[in-house]
């Protein structure tokens, strides 16, 4: 299963990078969204997918999934939620000021005067 997940994560990263390299601001944001999904799945995969039961104590169950990666992912999910919200607002504020969402037109100030 980890083999498959590694490939899925690779695809997610690939798509994310592809979108991030595009010129449309919105696509870039979608890209960052995919990026964080990829990262979260990767943590889960790296922790091992072998557990037979959710890491919640139940009678008679001993083979839990690794809880630590799950806790880490939870932290990471919340953080990326905050960042996504921020980027979204930033994006539309930028659009409002610049009247474009074309990254190529937001060239800016590496002007070598």
């Amino acid at each position, binding site marked *: 299963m980890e083999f498959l997940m590694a490939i899925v994560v690779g695809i997610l990263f690939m798509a994310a990078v592809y979108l991030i390299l595009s010129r449309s601001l919105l696509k870039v944001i979608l890209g960052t969204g995919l990026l964080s999904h*990829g*990262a979260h799945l990767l*943590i889960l995969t790296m922790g*091992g997918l072998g557990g037979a039961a959710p890491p919640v104590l139940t009678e008679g169950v001993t083979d839990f999934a690794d809880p630590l990666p799950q806790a880490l992912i939870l932290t990471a999910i919340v953080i990326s939620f905050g*960042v996504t919200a*921020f980027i979204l607002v930033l994006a539309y*504020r930028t659009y409002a000021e610049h009247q474009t969402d074309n990254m190529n037109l937001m060239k*800016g*100030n590496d002007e070598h005067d």
Partner: protein
Amino acid sequence: MINLLLFPIILPFLFAIILLFFKENIRAQRLLTVIGLLISLVAALYLVATVKADGVQAITLGSWPAPFGISMVSDMLSALLVTTTILITLFVVIYSFNAIGEERERHFYYPAILFMITGINGAFTTGDIFNMFVFFEVLLIASYLLIVLGGEKRQLRESIKYILVNVISSALFVITVAYLYSVVGTLNMADISVKIAEIGQPGIITVIAVLFLLVFGVKGSLFPLYFWLPGSYSAPPIPVLTLFGALLTKVGIYAIIRTYTLFFVHDTGFTHGLLSALALLTIVAGCIGALAYFDLKQIIIYNIVIAVGVILFGAAQMNEAGISGAVFYLIHDMLIKGALFLLIGIIIYVTGTSNLRKMGGLMKTHAPLGWMYLIAAFGLAGIPPLSGFVGKLLIVKGAFEAGDVFGSIIILASSLVVLLSVIRIFVYAFWGDPTIVELPKTNRRTFRKMMMPAVALVILSVLFGVGTEWLVPYMTDATDVLLQPSIYIDAVLKE
């Protein structure tokens, strides 16, 4: 007080939270911020004294045994960095009173600074690799707020780049931690070190080492990951730029130094060779940039890049001289960058522009500014007995001892470029005919008020250089921990 090492993290955090309740009251905001920073400073100084007296301070939160809870570790390096951070922030905050404008003050400017300090100090102190990620995020999101605060056209545009790059590097950070966890099954830094030593750093760990270098290289602006920095840093107002320039890249550097002295020390030929090669390229790239621009901000910003290269080059040598040089230079660079950015902020305030070609003859009207700038500039270039000298001396010595002649010569030559770039500012802005340029009307009182924190920082940096002898024992402690991971490990795991 076993929780002492947490105070420099918790106190700014607490004050930041309190400030959220007084959004509109600027006086309260200013007062509380200064008080909070002062208390934190006292705590940090006390921490330094404690570390000096009792050795590395470590605590595992929640009373859990060491690798299972989150450990916080204050060795001399992190204690010193924490102290310097708070000190610089204090001056920047005082400077901000006259420079940032009430609008920004009313919109969470001070809480954002305090949150950022929380993140920075946390990143300096933490002994847990995932916790470091969390603190990175705290300081990053606070820095996002600071960089965008005000919402000016250019700020927004550059913020997007800044944030994009950092989001990517954060994702990279997370997956790197995941890889590491997969191989060694732990997150506690001391424990990681032990376990890597146990398995003798196989190839996969080296790959992870490279990934860590890249992750922190983005934050610390290492070649070729620094390209975003010059543009983004020049967007926000000067006080924010000062904080960024003096503190943010240093967190990345600290993280590289920490991981490369604690974890990945079994294949230094490859990892540290790569690090020193990249460091040298960073210096070269920084030098090109520092000379290419005629913009005050850009020149100093590129000097950040150069300094990053110098410090990391020193750290990559992995010998006593190199590492202690890196530590010296790291703290020097924080102080001097703080001073320089504040000074050029005043120049920009006085002249109303950051374009060098539109300045001249300030020496006639603002002589104290000129002298302060000159001292800071020489300090940056590492002219003795100012602050940059000892660090550079030790770094070059370390490099020679390690047999890297070429690198040492580049470091020395880079000093010349640094000097040229900053002296160019002096020659253009302060010398020359004052009559060519018309200065905007500025308030002399504000000028004086702005000068105070800048001058204080310059004096501090001079003292740092002149009083090196007093600092040496502290630096030695810091270096010892870096060179002998066992000190660090014992402090964390033997509880």
